[in-house]
Every structure is written in structure tokens, then in C-alpha cells.
């Protein structure tokens, strides 16, 4: 068994796939950055991300998939599943080996597992498009903190860029400790430390625009008022808005 260690990026993974074919490795496991401790006795292979190698694999995959199929494939990478590299590798092997497009072969587990991963990312991306709650700071930056299950910031970037074209915004992934920032022209990735206690009233008063608290309270008031008590259905409520998201959802945080 050979442990293939890459840098955790999509390009890195593509390079790894190239080298697996190049060196005819069989029975591989992937690891990000450091070798996994549980596999001390296996052989290691370190992959240096290489643009040329990555592009060759990329164009090979693209040739065998539809545009939509490739976009799904790419999204799967951000699912953050433990075994995602393996799932994508199985799919890639099948796609490259088959003379025709295999996207619809749903009874094949390589295709099905990839689809499941894609759906995971897609659902989480859609949730973040819904659950991001911007707060306005004194210097007119709209910022939001999220903690998504999947690494979806790269996937939702364009959505927010198009929609909020005329305001500066920052969406920060507190789980993965990085954010995306839009400066009215471009979106860039930034790393920073965010105050963990960012929902406290003192913190809000210090950094936020004077209207911010008022709008948050208006939103809470609206959210409460549109509920129909005689139709109460908490199970459905929780199903659509799982509890783990509540700490970043203004309407689920009691008024200060």
C-alpha cells in the first residue's frame, strides 16, 4: 500500500493522480500534508503540485465529461469527506477507462459515491447562500461568520459577487480559519483571526454601524411575526434549519 501525500489543493490532487498513473502505483491511499499515523508501515510518496501535470489530468477528465458533469466533479472535491480523494480517484479511473460518458451510470458505485459527495457540497453551498447573515460595520463592510460542514466558500463566491456587487463584504469560515473578501472589484481569499465572541453586545456596539442592531431586531421581529402558531411544527423547522447553524443566525439568537 502506498500513501500518496499531497498539499490538499485540487491542483495537488490532480498532480497526485498524474503520478499514480506515471509510476503505476497500485493500492493507494491519499493523505493531506502529513502522513497519517495509522499507516506508519506503508510506503510514502510525496507529491509536489505541478501545474503541467495537473492540467493534463484536468483536460483528460474534462474531455470525458459534460460541462455540468465536470462542475459536479469539481464541487465534490470541496465536500470535505474523509475519503473524498479516493472517491474522486475511483470515478476518474472509471471515466478515463470508459469509451463513453459515464455520468449517468448510477448503479455503478464510483459514479454514485461521487454524486453523493457532490450533493453534500451543493446542499451545504445552498444553505450558506441562505444562512449567511451580514452585519454592517462602522466602515461599511458587510461581514458574516459561517461554519459550514463542507468547504464551500470557493463554491459560493460567484453567487455573492454577483448579488452584492455594490457593497464590500467578507464571509469568514470560522471552522477553516479563512474568508473571502470582496473589495467592489474582485474577490480574494484572506486569512485572519476573528473574535470568537462576535455576537456579544459590547463587541457589536464597538464595531458595528449604528443602525445594525436596529435591523437585527427588525429581522427578529419579522421572523416571529410571520410564524403561524396554530401550525407549529418544530420537527420540520429543525429539519430545515438544523441546530448547528443557529449560533450564526440572527433570528435564532435572542435579542440582546
Amino acid at each position, binding site marked *: 500500500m502506498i500513501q500518496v501525500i499531497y498539499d490538499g489543493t485540487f491542483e495537488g490532487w490532480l498532480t497526485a493522480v498524474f503520478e499514480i498513473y506515471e509510476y503505476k502505483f497500485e493500492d493507494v491511499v491519499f493523505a493531506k500534508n502529513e502522513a497519517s499515523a495509522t499507516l506508519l508501515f506503508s510506503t510514502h510518496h510525496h507529491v509536489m503540485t505541478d501545474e503541467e501535470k495537473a492540467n493534463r489530468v484536468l483536460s483528460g477528465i474534462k474531455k470525458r465529461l459534460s460541462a455540468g458533469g465536470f462542475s459536479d466533479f469539481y464541487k465534490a472535491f470541496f465536500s470535505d469527506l474523509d475519503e473524498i480523494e479516493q472517491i474522486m480517484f475511483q470515478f476518474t479511473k472509471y471515466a478515463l477507462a470508459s469509451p463513453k460518458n*459515464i*455520468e*449517468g*451510470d*448510477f*448503479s*455503478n*458505485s464510483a459514479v*454514485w459515491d461521487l454524486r453523493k459527495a457532490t450533493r453534500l457540497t451543493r446542499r451545504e453551498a*445552498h444553505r450558506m*447562500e*441562505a*444562512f*449567511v*447573515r*451580514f*452585519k*454592517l460595520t462602522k466602515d461599511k463592510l*458587510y461581514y*458574516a461568520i459561517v461554519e459550514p460542514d463542507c468547504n464551500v466558500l470557493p463554491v459560493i463566491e460567484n453567487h455573492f459577487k*454577483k*448579488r*452584492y*456587487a*455594490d*457593497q464590500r463584504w467578507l464571509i469568514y469560515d470560522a471552522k477553516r480559519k479563512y474568508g473571502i473578501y470582496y473589495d467592489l472589484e474582485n474577490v480574494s481569499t484572506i486569512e485572519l483571526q476573528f473574535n470568537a465572541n462576535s455576537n456579544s453586545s459590547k463587541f457589536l456596539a464597538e464595531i458595528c454601524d449604528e*443602525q445594525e442592531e*436596529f*435591523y437585527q*431586531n*427588525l*429581522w427578529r*421581529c*419579522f*421572523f*416571529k*411575526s*410571520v*410564524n*403561524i*402558531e*396554530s*401550525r*407549529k*411544527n*418544530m*420537527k*420540520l*423547522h429543525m*429539519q*430545515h*434549519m438544523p441546530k448547528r447553524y443557529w449560533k450564526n*443566525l*440572527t*433570528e435564532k439568537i435572542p435579542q440582546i
Partner: protein
Amino acid sequence: MVHERVMEKLAILADAAKYDVSCSSSGSKRENKDKGLGDAKGYGICHAYTEDGRCVSLLKILLTNHCIFDCAYCVSRKSNDIKRAAFTVQEVVDLTIGFYRRNYIEGLFLSSGIFDNPDYTMERLVRIAKKLRLEENFNGYIHLKAIPGASDELMKQAGIYADRLSVNVEMPTEQSLKLLAPDKNHIDVIKPMEYLKNEIVGHKEEKKLNYKAPIFAPAGQSTQMVIGATKESDLEILGMADYFYEKMNMKRVYYSGYVPISYDSRLPAIGTPVPIIRENRLYQADWLVRFYGFKVNEIVGLNQPNLDLDIDPKLGWALRNLNQFPVDVNTADLELIKRIPGIGYLSAKKIVAARQFKKLFPDDLKKLGIAYTRAKYFLAFATPFQLQRDLTSIQIKDQILNLQKSKYKNDFSNQLALF
């Protein structure tokens, strides 16, 4: 904004608007332009869900709950002793923009009680939409109520600035309307629907010829019927809905289970449960007609004017038509596969795609995520079907009902509880 007053108005006017069930924000084609604010292209987004499990997609409010009408089913009726309020045009604009910029909403759904006269009311609604579009360069979603009786010119303007327009028919039949809203006639709501249909179709045609032609209500029109306030059968309700889809080009017909809000003796008393299951069955039937190729008369008929409450309408249809089964998913047409209970629209498509690669067996179907325990009674697979072959409709129904853990199960159990 004067803070406390605006907060109070929002509480009153959101509360009054919540019985309008439409929350859709999809189907428009409005893109962000000139680096303005917002984008209403493509799919809808539900930004939150209230404790009743309903989606919050739009800032859904009334401009005012002052109303000259006295419709018994409406919480804002003239004779009801409630707090009244009215937003100014600027307040609605500020709320919409403030909420949208914080990613709370997809846009605005603005309705209103009728104060003074229809034109006066409609003019205010249009003015808000116009201000959002032209002064704020807002490209988010706007749904406006079309006020029956408003002038064609105002309707036209509304269509230019809004993504969707709706006129609520509220009562499924003229008789019920006469009973509960004696000042109103069905024709009053049919006329503006017809006008909107013609404008929507006309603008679409024009757009084909000239891409620069203005868009008119790109997300179409919708309407709503209140269910369970009056005596109509599901046959009448679905028949009416079918008329709206066929003749009025409606994008959606919404069914709103009546929430008792009045001691009026013409209506179900306060405390009567909301007919949530019936409402759900109507939506399922609506979906069957719109996406599954069913005709209304296959789902309900004169001999069976109401939908079953204990099973969904597709299963109901299948049990009445066992002669159409079993279906072999490896050879059958997509249209027929869609009719198998336990196989949804997307699963049917997946099956048709997957069977090109290999013959599908029960294990493959399970992997594809279909509800196999339901579907198996209707599938032509060699082995398991042998076992099911001689079951009657009633036996199949009992077996399926035993399998599913419906939260409504207690309401339907015809067995006596022993303990």
C-alpha cells in the same frame, strides 16, 4: 426611521400578511445590472424557516391592513377589532434594502388591504416597486399583489417593475365567495388575471422578436385558494386549479389551509385544527398534474370527489389501476416509470439514465434512492414480484401503511387501542 413605531408596524403588517402562503422567489430572469444591488436570476432561496416549518424567502408584508372590505375569512376585514397600521413608501423601501443587503431575504412580497379605492392602493404598491428598481437599482425579487379593479395602466406598470404578480381568488367557488365576501364577485378577480395573462404572453412574444423589449412579470402570475373554510370538494378545488393552469397560464396555484381567525358562524370555529393533511394532499395532486403527466380526472372524479387522507394521491391512483402494473423499469417509458409509487420525478430520470449501462435489479434501485418498500408492489422483477403477485389493492395498502411511520398515523388507525 422612527425606531419603535416602525418595529410595531412591522409586527402588525407582517402578521397580517402571513396567511398569504406564496413565498416563491424562483423563476425570474432579472440579472444584476450596472453593478447594482441584487440578482433574481434562477433558483429561489429560503433564507429561514419559521417554527411552523414554512419557508421565509421574501419580506412579506402588507402596505396597510386598513381595508374597506369585510370578507369573513380575512383577518384584516373591516369589522375585525384589531390594531391598524400603514407603512410609508420610504419605510418599505428602507426595510427591503436593509434586509436584502444583510442577506436576510430574496426580495419583497408586497400586498395590501384596500384603502380608499383600488387605483389609490395599486398606485402605492407600484410606486414602491418603481422606487426600488429605479432609485435603488434593486435587482432582487419583487412580488406584488394586483389589486382587482385597478386601472390597466397601473397593472402594466406593476408588471414592468415586479417579477411576479398575483390576484388571489381565495374562495374556490362563486357560492362560497358570495357567502363570505358578499361585496365581491369571481369575475372581479378573473378579469385582472386575464389581463395579466395577455400581457405576459404578449411581452414574451415581443421579447422573442426583439431582445431589448422590456420584461413583464418574468416569474409569471400565481393565485391562492383557501381550503377548508367552506364546503368545496377536492374535485372542485383541483378543477378550479386546472382552469387556472390551463386558461390563465398560472405559474402556481397555492392552497392555504384555513386557520380559524373568527367567531363568525359561517366559518369553522376558532380552535378547529388547520387542515394540514388535506392541504398537503392537494399539493401532491397539484404536483402530479404539473410534473407527472396526470390529468385531474385520474386523481379525483365524481365517484370519488375527495383525495384519500391516509395515502398520497399517486399511490391512490396506482391502487385503483392495478391493471397497469407491474411495470418493468428496464424497458418502460419514462412517463410510466414516473407513475410508480415510491419513484419520484428525479429517480425516474436516474433510472432511465442508469439502465443504458446495465440491466437494473432491486439492489440497484435501492442504491438509486427510490422508496423500494413502496415501489416493490408495482415492479416487474422476477423474484420479488412473484411474491406480491396476488395481493389485492387493500392488502397492498395495509402493508404500505404498516411500513410507514407517519406522524399522522394515529389519526387514521381504524384499530381500537387495547391499552
